[in-house]
């Protein structure tokens, strides 16, 4: 009797389900469960619909103003955005700068975490200050930054005072704007230290005690123990950082706001270009196609990251 129930349970899942729902208590549990996840399921269905629709719309042509429905045009949008020298490809190229900057940001947040991991007083306050850039909106940061880095601003004042007669014209040349943006990103890398610090604190003390017994100096400890054991955290930051960097929008939007006096086409990233196609140029089909291409680029980079992790990420701890 008991044996047959067991076999039944393992062989037929649906009959198990039915029996399970027959008990009033479990029925109540299942109904409550479904009710509670209903908003999530609705959200998921809309999400899936929108993404499929995104793919579909990328093969169509229409404008927001006309009442005509989107008209299928095949690969035309893709041909337009992928032809050599197109605005979108240039945007992708510019975005690559921020993707390549991700390791620098990680190095900065890792170094700050090493500092914040020292057993001295005042670390809580230090952590709170380090996270400040992450809670501040891009518009606020850019308002301060563009002034600090203006021709007569404090940064150039400082550069002049240390003997540089002709400091950079930060807000006229694209290259110098780019440098100022990268400096803002470097400054904004500090909050990443919270994650790096959590990684550091997860390393068991025994490793450091053993290193001390073996007479390792601080540098050897860092390179032979801390770094290898931190690779999972660094990898996590790299994967998420690259995904985020490809979608850089807010800072560039404020720095080179389309349609204003300080609009600078030469700073626009892929996502700013998507926004421009979709809404400013009234070519939503091209916007949708660019978004698909950006999504594929992100996918390829994520796969490369995941594929290369075996070479350098050390999962001995977990």
């Amino acid at each position: 009797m008991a044996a047959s129930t067991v076999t039944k349970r393992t062989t037929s899942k649906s009959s198990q389900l039915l029996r399970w729902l027959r008990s009033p208590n479990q029925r109540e549990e299942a109904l409550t469960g479904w009710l509670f996840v209903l908003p999530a399921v609705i959200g998921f269905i809309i999400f899936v619909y929108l993404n499929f629709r995104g793919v579909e719309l990328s093969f169509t042509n229409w404008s927001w103003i006309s009442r005509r429905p989107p008209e299928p045009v095949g690969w035309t949008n893709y041909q337009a955005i992928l032809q050599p020298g197109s605005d979108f490809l240039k945007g992708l190229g510019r975005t690559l700068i921020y993707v390549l900057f991700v390791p620098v940001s990680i190095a900065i947040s890792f170094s700050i975490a090493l500092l914040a991991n020292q057993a001295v007083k005042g670390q809580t306050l230090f952590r709170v200050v380090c996270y400040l850039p992450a809670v501040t909106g891009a518009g606020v940061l850019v308002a301060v930054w563009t002034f600090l880095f203006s021709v007569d601003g404090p940064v150039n004042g400082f550069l002049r005072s240390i003997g540089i007669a002709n400091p950079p014209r930060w807000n006229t040349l694209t290259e110098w704007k780019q440098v100022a943006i990268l400096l803002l990103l470097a400054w904004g890398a500090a909050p990443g230290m919270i994650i790096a610090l959590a990684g550091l604190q997860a390393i068991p003390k025994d490793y450091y005690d053993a290193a001390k017994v073996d007479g390792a100096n601080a540098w050897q400890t860092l390179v032979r123990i801390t770094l290898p054991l931190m690779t999972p955290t660094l990898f996590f930051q790299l994967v998420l950082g690259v995904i985020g960097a490809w979608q850089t929008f807010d800072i560039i939007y404020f720095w080179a706001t389309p349609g204003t006096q300080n609009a600078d086409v030469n700073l626009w990233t892929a996502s700013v270009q998507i926004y421009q196609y979709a809404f400013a140029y009234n070519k939503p089909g091209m916007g949708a196609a660019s978004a698909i291409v950006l999504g594929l680029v992100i996918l390829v980079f994520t796969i490369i990251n995941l594929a290369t992790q075996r070479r350098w990420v050390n999962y001995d701890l977990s």
Partner: protein
Amino acid sequence: MAATASTSTPTYARSILGRNRETFKLIVVYGLMILLTVILAYPFYYLATASFKTTEELFRYPPTLIPEKWTLDNFRGAFEVVPLLRMALNTFVICLIAVTGSILSNSLAAFAIARLRFPLRSIIFGAMLTTLMIPGWISLVPAYMFWRDVGRFTTNLIGINLGVNSIGPLVIPSFLTSAFAVFLMRQYFLTIPKELEEAARIDGASFFRIYWSVFLPLSFPVLAVIGIGAFMGSWNDVLGPLIYLSKPESQTIMVGLSYFNSQHMSVIYRGSRFAAALVAAIPVLTLYFFANKYLIRGIVLGGLK
């Protein structure tokens, strides 16, 4: 005598050297921490003081640490360029609805996924997590179409526009959960002992009652993280309001800041831009000041697991 002296001297020297090295290390660590604190806090300090400086003082080098002559002209200028208070109010309304929506919907879903047994539970959870991997840009254009249709539909049905040109697209999604928040809350709910709900169940409490009277009161830290995250996310959002709201008087304050980009080249509005940025920054900074403990703990939780 000489022998003891010669053996004790190196020990003494070593301990002095050791103490010096400790002191040296301490000086370096504190020196770097102070340097970084100054670098990280200076832009905020600069923003706070520059907002009260006269235009003449703003362009002086070296920049004055404290305004010589405090002025509110920048704020007056800022309020002339954009309806700043109105925008701040709009943003507050959006943030409060988004916070309510995300706390409610995410905690309900997370409770069900962490604690209730029902068919398709793990499939639903897994499906939600896959949404985290797809960049939002793909749904940008279809979402605008979708909300345009929603707007027409609700206008015809109930006479209220909940689509494009309303805050609907900015707040309704928060009632439909976010996968990351559900994930974070689920992790937290899993740590609450099962005995508590079993006891409540024996006493005849419904599952909703257990969620409401047992789980929510025990989950303040994670609710705070989700709530603060939702507030800051909505407050600092640019793309959403930029697309879905059009009239300046219904815009949010972050998009309001971008209005200064067309004028900020002119000298008169330089200070006003600072004043507006300060007004836009203060609410989140205040929230962060009081709640950083929860926020930082939540980031560690979400980043590690």
